[in-house]
């Protein structure tokens, strides 16, 4: 596609429910990143994919968070048993995956998650 897309744009859920957030990267980009932006905060790294593998998942805050990527393309971030502190904007980015300064991370519009 022309850019990174994410769905849904907004998600309201009840505490304790599971949610799935989807990211569709730019075609051909092998690297994919998930970040979390809490209200009024900077972006916090969650996980990085190169192809289908995740060499860096150090930012996942707890075992309730998991992510997968299939076919080197679409990625899904799953949050189980959601808590109110999970409320945030979840941003996905993709890049060509090369360790060059020109390897810009292009961001999607994010999913705003609200846990009631």
């Amino acid at each position: 596609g022309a850019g990174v897309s994410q769905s849904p744009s907004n998600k309201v859920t009840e505490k304790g429910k599971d949610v799935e957030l989807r990211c569709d990267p730019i075609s051909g980009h092998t690297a994919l990143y998930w970040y979390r932006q809490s209200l009024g905060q900077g972006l916090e790294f969650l996980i990085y994919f190169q192809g289908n593998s995740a060499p860096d998942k150090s930012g996942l805050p707890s075992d309730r968070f998991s992510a997968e990527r299939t076919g080197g393309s679409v990625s899904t971030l799953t949050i189980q048993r959601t808590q109110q502190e999970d409320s945030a904007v979840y941003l996905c980015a993709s890049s060509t995956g090369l360790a060059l300064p020109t390897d810009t991370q292009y961001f999607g519009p994010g999913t705003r998650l609200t846990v009631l």
Partner: protein
Amino acid sequence: AQTVTQSQPEMSVQEAETVTLSCTYDTSENNYYLFWYKQPPSRQMILVIRQEAYKQQNATENRFSVNFQKAAKSFSLKISDSQLGDTAMYFCAFRRVFSNDYKLSFGAGTTVTVRA
């Protein structure tokens, strides 16, 4: 982990004037990349400018320029001839050069409001 600090939560500037946003970072590495991203109310993160640490020349992109002071670990962004469309949150970000560590470390952001 690298720490990125933006000490100005909010800045206001008159249209056509100049505003400078500050950013400092902490790293023991000699080579790295620095970025400024813009996030308008649409939530779409957009790369404004990037700087490679091994380059002494300050990066410039149209009305946007940086003042990179490597010894002081300072990376400020100057917006010249401010326009209403520059109203957004601006994030400073750091990225390591080494492979398998492509994640961006972000500051908390500076909200810039351009007044008509």
